[in-house]
């Protein structure tokens, strides 16, 4: 056991033993080499419940170094209770500096959102994934979905999207919209809102995905094609916040959370807590741009 210089207890640096770290690292390299393909891995138990972020943690702990600056968010918020628990765990096991500031972080772990601010070449973001298999909604058996990916036979998925359109007039997929990666694999981007999905495409940063309970990891390298599944005449759309704005900052061009007050009245607030803080304090931000967000230029933008 390597002596942990900062904490004199019996835990290895980053909790996971070196053997398992190597296995995860080898698998990550293969995952990056085959964008969008789910690679099975050992997924050892952690002191965190399955379904609460063990996959994201596995990747973070296999990748993190002494000098990394770590940020972790849940639904976009640094203060979310589960994110707080995981932050404490990572900090305790590595001694790493932690931050709420997206621009300062070198390693970000997230549950169900991409940061509102654009991540760069020197940052890595790790997603916690509940259900890595995008085809699960049309095929319940693992050995069958495995074959479908192997043969690139995605007909069942396309039929399902078409049926949704016929029934409801649109593709009724909310968060976790399925995407085609590098023109070969259909992938689940984890339950991120559609707002975030286009930011995976031809991005500057490396995206890593960990599904601990299902024991799969996968990756989207930078500058990779990530296309939401759509038809020529029925297109992918992001959420529409045209009629709402953040009650604290007036910003419209961000993913907003809906809040209900005790009297039943409704208001909206920016979901990404660090972005909200920066906008509230009139600090400089560097937000993602993509063709969908850019269309929102038509609407009345940031006021105040």
């Amino acid at each position, binding site marked *: 056991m390597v002596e942990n210089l900062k904490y004199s207890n019996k835990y290895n640096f980053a909790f996971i033993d070196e053997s398992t770290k190597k296995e995860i690292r080898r698998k990550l390299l*293969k995952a990056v080499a085959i964008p969008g393909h789910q690679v099975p891995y050992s997924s050892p138990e952690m002191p965190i419940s399955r379904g609460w972020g063990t996959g994201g943690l596995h990747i973070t702990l296999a990748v993190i170094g002494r000098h990394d600056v770590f940020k972790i968010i849940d639904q976009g918020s640094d203060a979310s209770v589960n994110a707080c628990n995981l932050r404490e765990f990572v900090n305790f096991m590595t001694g790493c500096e932690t931050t709420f500031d997206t621009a300062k972080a070198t390693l970000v772990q997230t549950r169900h959102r991409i940061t509102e601010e654009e991540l760069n070449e020197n940052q890595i973001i790790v997603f916690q994934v509940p259900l890595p298999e995008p085809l699960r909604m049309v095929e319940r058996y693992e050995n069958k979905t495995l*074959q479908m990916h192997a043969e690139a036979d995605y007909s069942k998925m396309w039929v399902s999207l078409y049926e949704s359109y016929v029934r409801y007039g649109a593709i009724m997929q909310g968060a976790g919209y399925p995407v085609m990666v590098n023109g070969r694999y259909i992938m689940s981007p984890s339950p991120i809102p559609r707002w975030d999905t286009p930011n995976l495409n031809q991005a500057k940063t490396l995206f890593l995905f960990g599904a601990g309970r299902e024991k799969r990891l996968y990756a989207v390298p930078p500058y990779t094609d990530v296309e939401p599944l759509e038809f020529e005449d029925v297109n992918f759309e992001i959420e529409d916040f045209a009629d709402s704005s953040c009650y604290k900052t007036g910003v419209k061009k961000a993913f907003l959370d809906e809040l209900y007050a005790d009297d039943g009245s409704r208001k909206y607030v920016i979901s990404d807590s660090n972005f909200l803080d920066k906008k509230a304090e009139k600090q400089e931000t560097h937000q993602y741009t993509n063709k969908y967000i850019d269309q929102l230029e038509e609407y009345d933008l940031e006021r105040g």
Partner: protein
Amino acid sequence: MQTELNYDIVFDAQEHFRLLLDSISRPGKINTFPAVEIFPPEGLTRGAALTGFALLNPDATYFICGENAEQIADYLLINTAAQQAEISTTDYVFIPEGYFDESLSAARTGIPTYPEDSATFIIDCELISEGPHGNSVQINLSGPGVNGEATVFVSGISADLLDFVKEQNSEYPLGLDMIITDGYNNVIGIPRSNKFSYSQPEHINL
């Protein structure tokens, strides 16, 4: 032979892995291992040795091509406890400068359901640089990880080897992934997802 005393199995392994991850994520970007005082045997560069140290352990296997294979194998065994395996089953194939042999065709390229069950080539070369040098081969890269197109110049790498890997990768997602290291601690990664091509220099120094 004894284990390297100047190598930290926790922190060096992690730092070097980050470089390898960055290299495979950004084909064409030249990363450089920090100076670590290790003394690999003849035929294995420090870069290749550090790559081996970062990735090998008793759950993974390797195969050494070319000369001095026994010494190199021992060196890796002592420092990582990983065992050798035949080319047809091995996880990592260590290839020395300028080497190519038909026997490499036995290396695993994966199966449609598990394309990741494939070998990785750790290839030593003479020098990797951003601009042409000596009799370097120009490698043009495009695909995941590359912003448009990128070029990198490599000397001491067999053209037959490049042709071979390209051939093996034509049935993507099956294929081989390459980590190329030189005698100056530089490293680049070329995953199977990359559509690379290369052009030989006009004059070849024999």
